[in-house]
């Protein structure tokens, strides 16, 4: 039944004037990419167990705040964040093995929400199981399934928000991961064709869930049910929003604004297009020029939003993630470091057997 359409497509393709091959160009570009490529590899482990300072990871004295007193689990989570290495997820003072492949992690105030499934692709069918790993290392399964949707969380809130189809439209669901109970479900409508997910991807900040539709992003107040467009949002993109800040990616620049639209920081060294990544606490932003190759334009840069202080990120820098309180997580040799982002004053958190296995939560991988 599709023969005619298929034939027309093939006829059109056959008539094309194909430009000459430039294999050397592709080869050169590919060599450049090799230097930057970082991938998120799913972790697999055998069972849910809690390990303390074992399993190939040496927890250092840096976990003690004054050399003698161990940080509380909550403080260690805030300051040292979550990272994965040597087959385990490390949170605060604990190491945890999860009996499934972890394909995404999300910071919340109650701990980190871990998304697991049969593959490393977090949007593949069956990849939407959620568990909460608390700062003390305890693990509990959460009720919601997130098949083919992208949620939003915030490290200062125990909530996870996501959208899902409902009736002829959608609803924004807000779930408390601490109590494993639904807090709110707010219906909303609007065209959504741009992203390919089952429902619009969302961000969470305070009382608002931001849902990215075709023509605008909706700010949905989940407490009151009030819905209004995010002023200035063009739609058809997943807005980068964290802690009441919005990194507005425009052609040729990135503008960090308050959610009321007040500009806080403008970065113009973005090349044709810059991708912005806010730290979970909204204090910092990484701007990564969308380039296929290093050297084609300005390097990635890190900016402190309040002061405007910044530094360039070397191509070799990374993997590189965030802690809930805005420390930068990075790797030096086989040491996992927690650093102040701009001044790079670092504390060693742990030593790992296999540095190549390290994956940082909320990470920037440089490509």
């Amino acid at each position, binding site marked *: *039944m*599709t023969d*005619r*359409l*298929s034939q*027309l*497509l*093939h006829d*059109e*393709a*056959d*008539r*094309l*004037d*194909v*430009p000459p*091959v*430039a*294999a*050397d*160009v*592709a*080869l*050169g*570009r*590919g*060599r*450049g*990419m*090799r230097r930057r*490529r970082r991938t998120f590899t799913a972790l697999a482990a055998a069972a849910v167990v809690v390990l303390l300072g074992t399993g190939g990871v040496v927890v250092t004295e840096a976990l003690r705040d004054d050399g003698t007193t161990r940080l509380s689990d909550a403080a260690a989570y805030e300051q040292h964040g979550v990272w994965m290495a040597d087959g385990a997820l490390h949170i605060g003072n604990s190491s945890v093995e999860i009996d499934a492949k972890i394909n995404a992690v999300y910071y919340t105030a109650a701990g980190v929400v871990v998304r697991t499934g049969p593959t490393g*692709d977090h*949007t593949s*069918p069956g990849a939407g199981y959620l568990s909460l790993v608390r700062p003390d290392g305890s693990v509990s399964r959460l009720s919601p399934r997130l*098949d*083919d949707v992208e949620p939003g969380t915030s490290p200062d809130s125990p909530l996870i928000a996501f959208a899902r189809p409902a009736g002829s439209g959608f609803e924004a669901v807000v779930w408390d991961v601490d109590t494993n109970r639904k807090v709110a479900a707010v219906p909303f409508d609007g065209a959504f*064709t*741009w*992203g*390919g*997910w*089952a429902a619009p991807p969302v961000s969470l900040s305070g009382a608002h869930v931001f849902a990215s539709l075709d023509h605008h992003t909706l700010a949905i107040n989940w407490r009151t049910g009030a819905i209004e467009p995010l002023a200035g949002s*063009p739609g*058809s*993109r*997943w807005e980068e929003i964290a802690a009441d800040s919005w990194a507005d*990616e425009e*052609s040729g620049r990135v503008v960090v604004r308050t959610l009321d639209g007040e500009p806080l920081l403008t970065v113009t060294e973005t090349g044709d*297009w810059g991708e912005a990544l806010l730290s979970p606490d909204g204090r910092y932003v990484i701007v990564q020029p*969308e380039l*296929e*190759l290093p050297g084609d334009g300005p390097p990635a840069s890190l900016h402190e939003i309040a002061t405007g202080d910044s530094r360039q990120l070397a191509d070799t820098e990374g993997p590189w993630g965030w802690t809930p309180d805005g420390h930068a997580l990075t790797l030096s040799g086989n040491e996992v470091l927690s650093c102040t982002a701009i001044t790079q004053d670092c504390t060693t958190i742990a030593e790992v057997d296999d540095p190549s296995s390290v994956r940082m939560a909320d990470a920037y991988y440089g490509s």
Partner: protein
Amino acid sequence: MPRTPTDGEFTEFAHASWASLYRTAYLLLGDAAEAEDLVQTALAKTYAAWPKVRDVQAAPGYARTVLVNTASSWFRRKSWRNERPTEAVPDVGHEPDLSSRPALMSALAALPPRQRAVIVLRFYEDLSVAQAASALDVSEGTVKSQTSDALARLRTLLGEAVVPHTLGATND
């Protein structure tokens, strides 16, 4: 133990794959320069993963997947949607003259990028719903609904002769 393919083998592979990849890229994007850039990007990414390629015979499939994934990421950019020229194709009340080449390309241009990609993958690349879903990194349900929507739009633009009304009714 399998060895890593050489740069020479990559060059040979690039020459062999170029035309086919370009044709798919052009149908996806509708612009010669962008199609060439997409193919270059897909080949470069394939080369970046070349050490992991253990069987050169698998490289064409890998490159095609990378090409579609890259196009898919481009579609998600704000700039892609907002800065693309809009080719407004009026609904026609009669069967269009399909001997005229622009008819098909104009109709494709009238589709949102994801719907266009679904049409190209399913009816040019002859992928199944599951394969198209995997290539676009979306659910099978999304592929089905976008196929249905795209065919309905193409039926309006190209006529019943090209897209019979029964198509898309079952979404598979």
